[in-house]
């Protein structure tokens, strides 16, 4: 694995190589180099299988961290390739020409996080939602409970308790006293 890490950092300036398990590593590259890195991994290094692509909202650092997971069946080794893009202007290069299923992941990220992938097929269509008017709902600042309470009628009688406090009250009532 060492030589692959060196190769990636030498060629594409990859950094933060980390071996999570013996069959899983992660690496971070610049967003502008991501497509080159994935192409190289696919064509030259044998990482021909794209398992999935997704995004993580790092709201504190104002970035979206994208994760592309590629897998090499020959060596049974997978790499999580990360790149970070600006949270306020989320635009990313599309990789739908590299893998036939990538456009669905990009469509999902477009709808769930609002990340744009210019040129990706059907990227502006709705994916799982229909008639959604709120902000992209997987962003950390979207509050699911508040939206649900405001939109959907509730049946009276349902109580929500904090599990820790309720357990304490029910099981160890003397602890408070």
């Amino acid at each position, binding site marked *: 694995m060492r030589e692959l890490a060196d190769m990636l950092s030498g060629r594409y300036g990859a950094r933060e190589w980390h071996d999570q398990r013996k069959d899983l590593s992660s690496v971070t590259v610049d967003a502008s180099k991501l497509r080159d890195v994935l192409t190289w991994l696919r064509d030259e290094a044998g990482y021909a299988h794209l398992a999935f692509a997704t995004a993580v909202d790092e709201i504190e650092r104002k970035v979206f961290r994208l994760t592309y997971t590629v897998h090499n069946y020959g060596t049974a080794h997978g790499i999580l390739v990360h790149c970070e893009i600006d949270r306020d202007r989320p635009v990313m290069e599309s990789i739908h020409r590299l893998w036939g299923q990538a456009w669905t992941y990009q469509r999902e990220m477009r709808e769930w996080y609002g990340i744009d992938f210019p040129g990706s097929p059907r990227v502006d269509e709705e994916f799982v939602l*229909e*008639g959604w*008017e709120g902000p992209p709902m997987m962003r950390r600042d979207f509050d699911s409970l508040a939206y649900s309470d405001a939109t959907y009628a*509730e049946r009276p009688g349902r109580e929500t308790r904090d599990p820790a406090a309720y357990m304490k009250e029910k099981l160890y009532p003397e602890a408070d006293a």
Partner: protein
Amino acid sequence: MSDKKGKPVPLANEGLPPGERGLFCDAPPREYAPAAKIVEDFWNWARSQSLWILGFGTGCGAIELRPLMTSRYDMYRFGIQPRPTPRQSSVFVIGGYASVKTLKRIVRSYEQMMGPKFVVALGSCTINGGMYWDSYNTIKRIDQYIPVDVYIAGCMPRPEALLAGFQELKRIIRAGKAEGQNLYARDFERYKANQKRVIKDWNMPDYNW
């Protein structure tokens, strides 16, 4: 889907283009008075003995309909059988949580069914949201949008519970209390308002049967 991006579609059926007017009904649903006592009792008995389920697996509860249909639980014994088209079916089984996108199809399928029609709602999530109480995409009470006759609680309800629920439905029908169609017609305005509050891109006619 195609008209979503274009101009907003008029809601009442008066606004439909002339070519499509003939495809939909142009009157709101009306209530139907039951027939004479003895006739209605006989009909209710027949309705209860011949429940045709709309084969629309709206949620994960649909997975327990498969064992129910097959030889272990065999719902055919009770005169229950699946039917693929809403026009011919009389029972709508809401299989658990309904996302907004599915709710639109549920409403449409429900309205296309011929009365008297019955709704059986499975799972805790149709009653009060259940496990998905804080989800942004699932409704919490199905009876806000269509009238429900029987709830079967559980996550998910076992086939035995489903059978018990259907027997309860039969009892209600025979007692002449399963008047969901008339309820829907009576409170049509309220149901429509509720549906439109949740379904944000309302792009179908109001009377779509």
